[in-house]
């Protein structure tokens, strides 16, 4: 069941009406039931994985908490990490490692190196819920939280349907507690939830899925596409992936609000970042902070004696983060590239350089914003291409085939239409950049607000691309 299918909205409406007639304990059980229905809609067999993952961390969590010595605590934490990463490793990376190893042997001259790969289907959302359960064990180990005795609460925390398949990746300290508290329906929150869902759906169906057609035309025909086509496709992909993923997050956060649950913010107008460090504090915030807290800082973080060690820590963190996205070297290179973008910051020792993310960008920041956008967009080539040679070919083609004769594409009706969509998005986001999302319009009169909502619905109806395209991050 995907957020961009009507069945989800029927499901959401029914779940909402039933949920608010229940008491707290019943509510949790009902949310767990809904979450399993939601997840099982894709493939009920994968429910066993999520149950195993939940059960493991529920049991291990108690073991960590009760362990008398730090050593035993560490053992139990290791058990949790191993079990979770083994599940993830098998379902997501088994073939990748086999093929990479085979490639390495071939490169070393072992011409008869041949291993069998398996036909493994990647369970939807496994990267997300695995990280969420891991954070529970780690936070317990760090003594930040106490384990819950209520298994329903814990299982609901792992599988809460709005954020189950593509985040935001929640920490136990933020989300788990909410399931133990009495939830009270807040009218303003519910309205805001519906607005956020509407805006998320618009970003996905109208912007991302319409841009996807142009992107696919170039990236799906690598042999025949020309440099300017790749240029345009990469530019549009930057906005496609943003609207696709942030649209998903908006629907997730909005849906959770309807159940009285607050999820973490996942995007904060990332393309208005003035440097790469700021970008990562605005893009996929919950994943970035996960890697910061559980990979970068344990490696020593930025508080190290030598700049090289700091640089190494950043590179490792981004490489692992890249690999998290997908079992392909393109993602690793994409991560490493972002790590390399930090070199100027490291050299000038401005670890969190520039203005803090919560300080608004102004028109004077536009050159910095554009420079950051160009760097990020360059990275998207690796993210979108199917292989490393293909990424290199695309970059070469962009730079080599840029001539007056080939840029006629920029005057085509399709390009102009898509550019208008993108410019429109940038303008409304700039206008609303101090708000949690674009449709925070409380200060406007009701008739204006409703007109805007109806205009968005009309946009969805007339310009939406309803040929089902799964959210990009589902594959991760």
């Amino acid at each position: 069941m995907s957020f961009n299918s009507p069945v989800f909205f029927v499901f959401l409406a029914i779940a909402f009406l039933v949920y608010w007639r229940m008491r707290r304990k019943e509510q949790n059980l009902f949310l767990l039931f809904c979450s399993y229905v939601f997840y099982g809609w894709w493939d009920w067999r994968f429910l066993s994985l999520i149950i195993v993952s939940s059960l493991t961390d529920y049991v291990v969590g108690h073991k960590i908490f009760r362990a008398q010595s730090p050593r035993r605590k560490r053992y139990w934490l290791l058990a949790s990490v191993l079990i979770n990463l083994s599940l993830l490793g098998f379902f997501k990376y088994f073939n990748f490692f086999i093929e990479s190893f085979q490639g390495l042997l071939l490169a070393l001259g072992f011409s008869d190196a041949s291993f069998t790969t398996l036909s493994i289907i990647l369970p939807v959302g496994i990267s997300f819920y695995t990280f969420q359960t891991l954070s529970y064990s780690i936070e317990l180990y760090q003594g930040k939280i106490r384990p819950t005795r209520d298994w329903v609460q814990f299982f609901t925390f792992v599988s809460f349907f709005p954020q189950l398949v593509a985040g935001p990746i929640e920490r136990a300290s933020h989300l788990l507690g909410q399931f133990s508290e009495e939830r009270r329906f807040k009218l303003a929150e519910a309205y805001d939830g519906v607005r956020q869902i509407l805006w998320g759906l618009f970003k996905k169906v109208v912007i991302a899925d319409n841009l996807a057609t142009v992107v696919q035309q170039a990236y799906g025909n690598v042999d025949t596409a020309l440099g300017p086509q790749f240029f345009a496709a990469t530019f549009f992909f930057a906005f496609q992936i943003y609207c696709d993923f942030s649209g998903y997050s908006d629907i997730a956060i909005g849906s959770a609000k309807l159940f009285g649950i607050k999820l973490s913010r996942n995007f904060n107008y990332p393309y208005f970042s003035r440097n790469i460090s700021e970008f990562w504090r605005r893009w996929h915030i919950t994943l970035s902070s996960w890697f910061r807290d559980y990979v970068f800082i344990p490696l020593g973080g930025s508080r190290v004696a030598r700049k090289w060690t700091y640089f190494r820590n950043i590179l490792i963190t981004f490489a692992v983060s890249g690999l998290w996205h997908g079992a392909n070297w393109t993602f690793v290179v994409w991560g490493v590239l972002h790590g390399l973008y930090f070199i100027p910051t490291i050299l000038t020792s401005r670890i969190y350089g520039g203005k803090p993310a919560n300080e608004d960008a102004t028109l004077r920041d536009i050159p910095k914003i554009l420079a950051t956008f160009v760097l990020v967009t360059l990275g998207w080539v690796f993210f979108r291409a199917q292989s490393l040679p293909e990424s290199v070919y695309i970059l070469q083609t962009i730079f080599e085939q840029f001539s007056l004769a080939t840029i006629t594409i920029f005057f085509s009706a399709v390009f102009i239409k898509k550019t208008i969509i993108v410019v429109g998005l940038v303008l409304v986001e700039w206008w609303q950049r101090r708000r949690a999302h674009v449709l925070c319009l409380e200060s406007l009169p009701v008739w204006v607000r409703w007109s805007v909502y109806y205009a968005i619905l009309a946009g969805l109806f007339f310009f939406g691309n309803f040929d089902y395209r799964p959210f990009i991050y589902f594959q991760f």
Partner: protein
Amino acid sequence: MHYTPDIRTFVRIMVLFWLPVFVLFGVTVFFSVYSGEITPLGYVIERQVRNDREYLFARGVIGRETARYKYMGAERASPSILVVGSSRVLELRAEMFGGTGSFYNAGSMVGSVHDLVDFIDTLPVGREPEVVILGIDAWWFDASRFNKRGLREALSKGEEFYNWKAYVYSGRRIISQILKNPAYISDSMIGIDPFDGRRAIGLDALEHGNGFRNDGSRQYAGYLTAMRQDMRYVDREDPPIIERLEEGLDPFSYASEFDDEGLKILAEFLSKSKERGITVIGFAPAFSSEVYEEMMDSYYTEFFSAFQERVPGVFGEYGFAYFDFSDVRSLGLEDVYMFDGFHLTETGTAAMFAQMINTTCEGVFTGCEHMREILDAALKDPLTTPAEVNWQAF
């Protein structure tokens, strides 16, 4: 537990907000169904086969489901004469047979030799036609193409009637049309094909007069209107067939290579047809002289010559007749008898059929003399009627 006042307020506001949206959407759904755009295929076929009045069916927005529609039509009509092939056989009409047997044109149902076998395998025993007139396209034997299994795929999919997207897309089209021209509402309520006055089912039929008639044959209103305005040959396909051939675009390919596997699959179809008592008459539909000449003098020559040489033999093995009308000039016609580079007009098709029954009629069709009279009369002055023949006159 009961809902709190806040929840009740929220639900009330939501209902208030969404009600106009659902009402508007409901209206478009009504129009979509009423116009026939999302009518279930079974219902369309039932009306067409009943033949109590002339219907014209063509959807304008949603997946056209043509292969499925034609398969269901062939099965339901259970005719004694069945036309099978791609869109290139669609101008064979019931009128050409002078009512000498029940007829259905299932053109556009198949797009490969695999589809032929899938068709005969799926057709229920006892519902076989007596005669199948089979139009064969050369590219069915192209190694790079012949694995296409459009019919099987079409039959395995759910009907568009149950697809929510169909309602959105068709609603979008209807509202856009109404905004452009409010009279669209009354036009669609009347539901008459603007070209020939048939009862239109589907937005393409309603708006443009294109579509499938009761006998399954196709009415190309747009092409006919253009021809009546300017009686010259113009390749009206987009992109034109000659351009596709020159540039190796679908259905042509620079990599075209004749594959014997295709012949085996065709033989399987013919063998199964024979076993089930069906007489098959095969033919290669015409190309315009311009396209034919290009085919015989380009990268495509080797492939096409192999097709021309080897396919007739397979029909011969099973004792079935086969005609090669690949060059429109072999019918004594000029390119003006073609809608585009590879679709004959109805008049051109009548001429082709007349030639077919000159050599193969007795023992296959009943009332051969009557058929010949009809065709002769219709083709008496073909140059003056390179578009539709008014069959009602006969």
